[in-house]
């Protein structure tokens, strides 16, 4: 039996446990139900540009901040 690894991240100031070792930003946003198309994502204080969501990975201990940008002004 192959027991999967797990990781803990801090997402918007809440600790979240996840099965797996790392996720791309896009995978994490899908898993966490960030549904609007425009989102500000910061990992450990650094902004991840939208074009980099498949290239940047989140691992154990990372601090992730994600906020929806909603149309209207």
């Amino acid at each position, binding site marked *: 039996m192959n027991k999967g690894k797990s990781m803990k991240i801090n997402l918007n100031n809440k600790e979240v446990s996840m099965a797996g070792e790392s996720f791309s930003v896009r995978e994490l946003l899908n898993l966490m139900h960030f549904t*609007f*198309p*425009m*989102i*500000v994502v*910061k*990992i450990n*204080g*650094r*902004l*991840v*540009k*939208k074009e*980099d969501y498949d290239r*940047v990975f989140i691992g154990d201990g990372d601090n992730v*901040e994600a*906020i*929806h*940008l*909603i*149309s*209207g*002004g």
Partner: protein
Amino acid sequence: MKSKLEKLKGTCIGIAGCGGLGSNCAMALARAGIGTLVIADFDTVTLENLNRQYYFLDQVGQKKVVALQENIRKVNPAIDVQIHDVRLGPDEVVNIFKNCRLIIEAFDRADMKLMIIETITERFPDKFIIAGSGLAGYGENNALRTRRLGNLFICGDETSEVSAALPPLAPRVGVVAALQANQALEIVMDDLAPSVGDDVWDE
């Protein structure tokens, strides 16, 4: 040592977009005593704008930046109001706002909000940006708030999207615009330090 109001008088703030957020935020900063405002928008005042934007019936048809400059001068002609009648992309954002201490994001579209947040964070890591997100409809006073992520502040409820059933209306738009202006005052008057290492992922 400079007084807090003197600091404000010596400060330049950029406002990207002169719709509901931008026009109301500009007027609040003008009345509070800002020294210089750099305002940018390509749009024209319409009748439909008057349910929330700081314009008047006789300004319908005017360029928003021209009308807003006029309204600011009616309150305080000493404010230096620099206007840019232009559609903003990354290059324009950099050129127009390079001398501003902080930038107010006051666009309508979410993709434009992300564009300016990415541009300012990448090109001006020492500048603050104050964005609006979620202001449609009415009620839910206490859902409107401000969150800080490094040099980025986001004001609004982060959920209510503008639609036919949930239009933008003066009170909630005005509250979010005032939250943005109030945050700007805190940054300037209390000399908030930019976050170290608040940059863009790059590898």
